[in-house]
């Protein structure tokens, strides 16, 4: 089984930091507007500190753990994915069940030259299976391999 590209940790970190920032905005607003409120039950700045520390710790640790448990392997007829920090999941996606597949890339991923493959099946619970953290060219190779299988199978 293969690991993801280590750069995905940085991507996840940046994303988590952005989420923290998003939470931070209303918190900062609250702190500023309640700075001199007479009946406040928390010392000033404590909520802000909580969010900052919590977000910081999560942004540092979570990508690491996530990276540690992410594995994937392309078998002869299936793609096997293993992932999950709290809930460990192993998914087998039979290639013959793939209806179509995409390579997707967001802004941050593009900056690091990463891409993810999205496999769509007709199922409901795992109808879109995402394999993130692949080098762009690696993702393309993987996609071509899966595509070749799909084309051969339908012939």
């Amino acid at each position, binding site marked *: 089984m293969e690991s993801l590209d280590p750069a995905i940790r940085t991507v996840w970190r940046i994303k988590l930091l952005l989420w923290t920032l998003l939470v931070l905005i209303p918190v900062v607003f609250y702190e500023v507007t309640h700075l001199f409120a007479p009946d406040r039950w928390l010392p000033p700045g404590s909520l802000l500190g909580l969010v900052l520390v919590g977000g910081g710790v999560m942004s540092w640790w979570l990508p690491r753990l996530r990276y540690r448990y992410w594995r994937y392997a392309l078998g002869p*007829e299936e793609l096997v994915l293993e992932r999950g920090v709290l809930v*460990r999941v192993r998914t087998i996606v039979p290639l013959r069940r793939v209806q179509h597949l995409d390579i997707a890339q967001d802004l941050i991923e593009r900056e690091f030259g990463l891409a993810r493959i999205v496999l769509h099946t007709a*199922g409901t619970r795992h109808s879109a299976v995402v394999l993130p953290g692949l080098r762009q060219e690696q993702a393309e190779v993987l996609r071509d391999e899966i595509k070749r299988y799909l084309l051969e199978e339908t012939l």
Partner: protein
Amino acid sequence: MERSPASEPSTEAPQFRRLHPLTLLVRLLMSLPALVILLLPALRGQTIDQGTLVTLLLYGLLAFPLILAHYLRFRYALTPRELLIESGVLTHRRRSIPIDRIQNIQIERTLLARLLGLARVRIETAGSAETEGEIAFVSLAEAQRLKEQVRAFRSGPVTEQPVQPARTLLFAMTPGQLLRSGAFRFSLVYLAGMFSGMEYLDLTPEDLIDWVVRGRLHWVQEAFEQAPLLATTATLLLAALLGWMAGIVVHVVRFYGFQLWQEGERFYRRSGLFTVAESALPRRRIQALVIRTNPLMQHFGWYTLEAQLIGLDRETQGVQTLVPFGRLTEIQQIAAHVWPIALPATWQRVSPRMIRRATVRYLLIGAGMLLGLGWIWPEVRWLLLGLPIGAPLLAWLQYRRHGYALAEQYLFVRQGVFRHRIWCLPYQKMQSFSLTRSLFQRRLGLASLQVDMAGAPAIGGPQIRDLPEAVAEKLLQLVYERFQLHCRTQSPAS
């Protein structure tokens, strides 16, 4: 695909038709509820003031021309190649549905439409899951003509199909059966609905008794005033009774005159009291069969058969009832028309540690719910005392009712206490496989196996919960091997 190039290229303009003029009336009547909602504040005050008049005026100025414009702009035509539907008031749309892509033509008749002799025609195609086109409303005769024509064009000149597949009735529900089955459909949802409705309307059993016997039973009211507990119990009983009756009514409305029949590779079902809906279920769209029951129904030996379909999921998430109410043997016979199934004689149990996990889960959920409800009705908190007995009991029942069996063609999974379901999952139709181990499961050495099927509900789908890890791994291997085997032997086209 097969376009006969030799024949004339049908250059003549398609014959466009309009909807039935009574459509205007139907649409107008159908739009009235919106008006009532608009006027609700005014109607409650029971005075007609200027605001009400303005609303009425605006409504008239907007709604009536819209309905008329919609009618005038809507036309359709059927040619040997395609069905053309033109519509749209502001944006004009011309939709063309090729005849050979039309899968099914559904004729639906609401109560209002039936009174006026009209019908709604729905066109389903192979490509999309939902209705592709809708023609509402035309006369019933016209609807039937459309259906016949499409059928004729589709099978027409290219492939001569003189043999209409025989129509075999598989199941029909008698009125007695309908009422009896409705009685079993007791649902907490209706109970809760009734209860909140009574709260909202300030309806108490005293009022009701008073209303029925016209104030002759004063001692009842006095007794209620003396003992609040008695009054609460009576209220709950009344809510339960009303909820139960509401359940019967809903059930009767839905399944009145239920029929299931088969024509070749397709199953058809028709039911409904006010709105008669007919739908076609092609066999190859069926992904899984579900036999369900609840403890009460099971006690009397009654079951329901449902099919999980890919696509066609306008109603209830791709799950369609094949037999609303029947004995297990009868259901197995009907299911055999879909697939040759034999229910397993023995079921494999999961790990008994499931009881421990489920107990903890129910304790937490129960405590949370009761404390939440206790916030509103403090009396509810007394039920917390029952939790230490109720939670383990429920967990144990759940363990007893959970099981799986590997058959030659199918994986069988059963689960649920109050909503007991038996899934019959053909290996060939499986989509993907997942083994999950949560933090708590890992500590107990357990794992759950999920098999994803097309058309399965997103939550509450089949899964084998809390297997010992080694067993789960082996089962995953086994199921996946069978899946591969079945896919290889079967032609990949299907």
